[in-house]
């Protein structure tokens, strides 16, 4: 990993110290986790049980999802309250592949129809289920479906210059509409029960340790490469235009930039990434159901980003992992009161860490420095507004 020293294609990472650490952590985890899980004997103190691997994998998918939101919110000022929709669509595409893989091992032993179709008396596979028995086709769909929805939604809204809270609310309406639609049994996606009881992926048993670790590694690779893509974009000239749009959209437009094209590009890319996150998430948790579309989920994603630190990419990932770890921990440790803790955390972070966790570290340094020198720099550094 000598990327920090080379002059090659990764030059955009030079100034990104946090990113270097982040990637190093990911790399370390990619090496260590398989060793701890597969090589060490189960009796060892350092052995990592498979369910922890899957749990970490799940956090990583959330991290990727948060990353995709940070790309548009942190760098382009688009607050989507509907990003869960892209995540869920990617997940459904993967789920459909996994369902078809079950084959005749379902409870009714029907080789083509998934169980839920059999007992609802469906006679043949609906047209939109065709092709999903092919992994490559399913992977294309994982990208295509969320990407297409993102493109259409973005094309409509950015062209007509819907911005700010209006955009947030209609993106929420979009995910809500999809929630209701997928919820209908007549849609052919298993209704509220969603898709479950997956058996294997690419011929490998989905419960096996090796598969679990591979999925975990795939999540790391996806997260790291998406991070690199995002970092590349935001450090390029394109990224500067995006930041310009975030801070003063009209000015950028008056300078002659086609603002909607930039927004559309980055929004579509973000929805693609969310779709990938969903596709990796489903085999690791074993279920996809319409509740992933619920507006509350999408709001939560934004909260992860805010807690981690908006506009830093790795901060978003960190926020996602921390909040979800907190959820895992507190729902077990404080089952009756964990909402107080989580809600309190959200309030406290907005009040006391307005820039999120990673944003606070440098500004804390700046503050102590300014207090020592009694200069005015800290005030200008913290007094900026966003919106």
């Amino acid at each position, binding site marked *: 990993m000598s990327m920090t020293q080379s002059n090659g294609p990764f030059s955009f990472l030079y100034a990104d110290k946090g990113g270097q650490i982040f990637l190093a952590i990911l790399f370390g985890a990619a090496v260590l986790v398989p060793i701890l899980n597969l090589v060490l004997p189960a009796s060892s103190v350092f052995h990592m049980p498979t369910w922890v691997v899957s749990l970490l994998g799940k956090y990583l998918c959330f991290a990727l999802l948060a990353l995709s939101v940070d790309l548009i919110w942190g760098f382009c000022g688009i607050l989507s309250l509907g990003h869960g929709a892209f995540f869920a669509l990617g997940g459904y595409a993967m789920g459909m592949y996994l369902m078809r893989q079950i084959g005749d091992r379902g409870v009714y032993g029907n080789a083509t129809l998934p169980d839920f179709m059999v007992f609802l008396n469906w006679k043949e596979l609906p047209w939109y289920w065709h092709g999903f028995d092919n992994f490559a086709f399913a992977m294309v769909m994982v990208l295509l479906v969320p990407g297409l929805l993102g493109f259409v939604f973005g094309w409509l809204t950015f062209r007509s210059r819907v911005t700010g809270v209006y955009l947030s609310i209609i993106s929420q309406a979009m995910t809500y*509409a999809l929630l209701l639609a997928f919820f209908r049994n007549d849609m052919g996606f298993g209704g509220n029960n969603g898709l479950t009881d997956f058996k294997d992926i690419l011929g490998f048993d989905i419960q096996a340790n090796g598969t679990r670790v591979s999925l975990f590694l795939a999540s790391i690779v996806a997260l790291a490469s998406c991070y690199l893509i995002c970092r590349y974009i935001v450090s390029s000239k394109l990224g500067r235009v995006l930041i310009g749009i975030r801070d003063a959209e009209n000015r950028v437009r008056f300078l002659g930039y086609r603002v909607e094209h930039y927004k559309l590009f980055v929004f579509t890319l973000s929805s693609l990434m969310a779709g990938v996150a969903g596709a990796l998430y489903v085999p690791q948790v074993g279920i996809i159901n319409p509740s992933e579309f619920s507006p509350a989920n999408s709001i939560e994603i934004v909260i992860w980003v805010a807690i981690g630190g908006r506009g830093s990419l790795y901060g978003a990932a960190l926020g996602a992992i921390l909040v979800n770890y907190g959820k895992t921990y507190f729902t077990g440790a404080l089952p009756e009161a964990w909402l107080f803790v989580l809600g309190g955390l*959200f309030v406290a972070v907005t*009040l006391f860490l307005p820039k999120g966790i990673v944003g606070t570290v440098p500004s804390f340094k700046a503050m102590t420095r300014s207090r020592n020198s009694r200069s005015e720099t800290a005030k200008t550094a913290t007094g900026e507004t966003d919106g």
Partner: protein
Amino acid sequence: MFEKLSGLLAAFACICVLSTSPVVAQDSKAVDLVQDLGSRSYSKIIKAVNGLAATGVNGVEGVLNAYLSRNLFVRKSDKRVVFAKKTDSQYRLFAPLTRQSLGTAKRSDLTKLRLNNRLRRTLRAALGGLTLRSSDPAQRIKAANVVFKAPKASQVSILKKVLAAEKDENVRPVIERSLAAAVLAHGATSKARAEAVIVLGTYSDPDVSARLKSLLIKDSAGRFAEKEPLVREAAQKALDEIAERVAIWDFIGKLFQGVSLGSVLLLAAIGLAITFGVMGVINMAHGEMVMIGAYTTFVIQEIIRTSAPAFFDVSVIIAIPMAFLVAGAFGVAIERGIIRYLYGRPLETLLATWGLSLILQQMVRTIFGPTNREVGNPSWMTGAIELDGGALLTYNRIWIIVFSVVVLVLLALVLKKTAFGLQMRAVTQNRRMASAMGIRTGWVDAMTFGLGSGVAGVAGVALSQIDNVSPNLGQAYIVDSFMVVVFGGVGNLLGTLFGALTLGVANKFLEAWSGAVLAKIFILVAVILFIQKRPSGIFALKGRAVDS
């Protein structure tokens, strides 16, 4: 002759029941029949009920009424059917017919008589026959309606006489309708029955259509339920006429449903139109303010139920200002404690208020428990006005429509006509300038947020009348509320009104056509597309202030 007698007896029945004087002529058959009421077989009980009604003995009406109000029991010791009245610690027993005292018993010594829908129907029909000549017009209407449902051959002549004697304009049509139904069912000639059908055809309620349609049903062999072609033709003609007549009422009924849904949306959104629309706070805890209002109503009803049950009907009225104050106080506390540090960072208010909403939900869950709480409708909010053709305008929804309009008007007045409203608008339009003019902007902010929250609380009082009172109440409305505000145009009360009504009415008309789930999806998609056309809602604010 016999019928005349039984009618007369029935007229005196109530008096006899009230005075516990011993009844002289005691028909042993009636006593046996009363004993049959304690049977395990519904069919046997029904036979007994009909038999009792036919004997016309004094006290039968009292027995049947006691059965309906669940005061008849079987004494376990001797299997005797008794009338039991609860006193402080035990039950006082009486003979059902004569009301002679039979001593006392504990609840565990008694078994309540069985009762189900079929029996209830039979009891009401029997009582209806007995009370057709009651002196109370409301009783007569009730009785006639019961007779309409299952007319007996013997009742044709009674109904004729009752109709001839009836003076009350409100009661006459009901009796006439029952008579027609009775003639249709038991008339001797097909001509008389066809005429009865024509009489029935002048009424439009669904019961009549149901009766007429039942004539035209074919059985599995393709034979009509009604054998006379003459009657069938008349029925078909009457049904066509009814359908034509009720079409317009159907439409009005649907419109009412839409407006009613719109008014609920309006109430849910109106507080948000202030905290979000005017102040720019993305207030995710708005739904929880609504919930707090609903729980305030619950608490007030509980207090009234336990300490002053007589005032139950005004509990909702008392709850309105209380809910405003409680939710308003929460609002002020939230503004002073959290929101005021976040002005100029609207998106962060989203995060903080989301956290708050989680806390408030869990708080309510801890204090009141996770289950639904019962909030009753006061008597003036129960029941409905029936339109021609069976469409119903329920009172609770009528009141909610009225209430939402009142809230909207009051709020508009506060904003436009009071000094506080002026200050509020000044602060939202140009904070610094307002401050320079000597307005205490902090105070105005707190009061504005309090006002928005208070109005949300008031909405909670209304919603408690039609929906669950549970910790999830607020969550159910939050997406819809935001949609309404955005659709109508942020910062514009009139827009909120139009937004809510449009969405409500459109939803109800779509629902009739596509079902509830699809209707909701269509509405959401329509709003998304509409926002493309008008990116700032129906009533967009003009000027630069919007594009900050």
